[in-house]
């Protein structure tokens, strides 16, 4: 891809660069490898020293303990509900609004669109105290809607979908209009299927964002049974210094990281394309 590849006499330089980057990449993976290794060590040994990590015995007990005792499964379930809820909500709202802003004219539309774009500049921290107050007044904290709903106000998806709908040639929906189809039918049957790549991008971003969100669920979900996995993993870290259960904690970290990592491996192509697309726009 890079034209420099074709240039003669730069082969050695390129190899040296590649070698350096591979070395850096190995260092990059060390923390995860270390965590993985410790997760297979018995807790009793780690209490004395982690230096034994490279010698047997290894055990799966830390992982089987997760299945038996901890709240990890409840937290994973909560995270799944919240992330699916946020993703579905964002996809529905952003698709409708994106079509509206790109295609369906009404009075004042362009002014409203600019106001929505301004919303992109508002960081979560600027509204979080008031949001907490709103959900307190409604007595809704420690419920799924309270964790899900604030994420649906993000303007990013609307912006992305509006751009995407605008890029679809107008001929396509105008042809459908001649067939006397209603606006909604055109949106649903003709245009929406064309936006599937954008839906995938937005869906993955929303899912990962909701899964990894920390600040809002930390504030809203105060009961352990309503923790998401991200907040739950934070709660297990507090008495970290006493290395009792160190291996168990490492196993939890690995286990909790697995779902997103699998999502990442499966959708890597889309994620990369999504980031690239965001950069070019």
């Amino acid at each position, binding site marked *: 891809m890079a034209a420099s590849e074709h240039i003669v006499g730069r082969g050695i330089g390129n190899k040296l660069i590649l070698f350096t980057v591979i070395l850096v990449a190995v260092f990059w993976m060390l923390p995860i490898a270390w965590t993985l290794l410790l997760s297979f060590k018995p807790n009793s040994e780690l209490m004395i020293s982690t230096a034994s990590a490279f010698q047997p015995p290894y055990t799966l007990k830390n992982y089987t303990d997760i299945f038996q005792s901890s709240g990890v499964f409840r937290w994973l379930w909560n995270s799944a509900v919240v992330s699916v809820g946020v993703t579905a909500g964002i996809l529905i709202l952003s698709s409708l609004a994106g079509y509206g802003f790109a295609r369906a004219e009404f009075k004042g539309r362009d002014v409203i669109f600019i106001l929505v774009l301004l919303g992109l500049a508002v960081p979560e921290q600027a509204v979080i105290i008031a949001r907490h107050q709103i959900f307190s007044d409604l007595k809704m904290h420690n419920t799924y809607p309270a964790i899900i709903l604030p994420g649906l106000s993000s303007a990013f998806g609307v912006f992305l979908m509006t751009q995407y709908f605008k890029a679809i040639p107008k001929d396509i929906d105008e042809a459908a209009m001649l067939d006397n*189809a209603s606006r909604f039918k055109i949106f649903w049957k003709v245009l929406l299927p064309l936006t599937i790549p954008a839906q995938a991008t937005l869906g993955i971003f929303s899912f990962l964002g909701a899964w990894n969100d920390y600040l809002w669920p930390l504030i809203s979900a105060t009961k352990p049974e309503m923790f998401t996995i991200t907040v739950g993993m934070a709660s297990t870290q507090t008495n970290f210094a006493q290395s009792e259960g160190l291996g168990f904690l490492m196993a939890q970290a690995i286990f909790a990281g697995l779902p997103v990592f699998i999502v*990442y491996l499966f959708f890597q192509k889309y994620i990369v394309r999504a980031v690239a697309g965001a950069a070019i726009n």
Partner: protein
Amino acid sequence: MTDVTLSSARPVAAKRPGGASIGPRWTNALFVAPYMVFYVLLLVYPLFKGIWMSLLQSDMFDDTSKFSGLANYYRLFNDKVFIGTVWNTVLFVVMTVPVFVVIGLLLALALNRSDRTAAALRAIFFGTSVLSVTIVTIIWKMMYMPGNGAIASVMRYFGLDPIAFTTTASLALPAIAITTIWWIIGLPMMLFLAALQQIPGELYEAAALDNASRARSFWSITLPSIRRTMLVVVIYEIVAQFQLFGQAQLLTQGGPNNASRPIVQFIYEQGFRSWNLGYAAAASEILFVIMAVAALAQFFASRKRVEE
């Protein structure tokens, strides 16, 4: 479908009853209405409510609050802990943003190839970004721990005294910065990669014909071509790193002695630990203003440079 000639048929279509009309219609607003409900109730309203709350003095005992003007802001500017958090956050931004730009760009330059090795390496550097902050901090606690941590073990192996990174005042913030860079270097790398791939290959071929050195083609072709992306990365990272919270809260608890406490942690603790909601709201407005000013300053500075 696309073969239909539309221009002549358009006015007829607009008048046809039952079907969709092309001109403006109020029912078209129904498409954006569902989103706008959320936008207004959970973004616009809380934004103004937050500003209003920052002007109130809340009373813990009878759960009432009264208007107190700018008292909260005045108190913040005289609060050594708050000023300290502003300083820590700015310092953190200064520590991380240049690294994100330089390392992100270097990785992108090195991995801008279409072979499998480069793809695997890109996946490694980007892969850590999908982890949550809580997993990242567990992993890095295991690196930094003074007794049992990986870095301490290596230092001991070489006969050095282990350093307590997260509990030494001068090292706590750099430790958080290193963790953060490890965590999300992949994003700037990907953004730069996307920009590099937009540069036409002929430019480099022409430079090669002129016997331009690698460094020269970098300065006179690559860098000018990715200037816009550079600006995007800088502004994005400034805004993102000002929001530092989880890494600090979980790795160092803001300590030792407030040495690594960022603004958002201050807001969180004032708001949801001490329940000084008005005070926390005022701090969040200040954070908002600082972020906006930093991003705008960067924007105008670079625009000026481009125009020159």
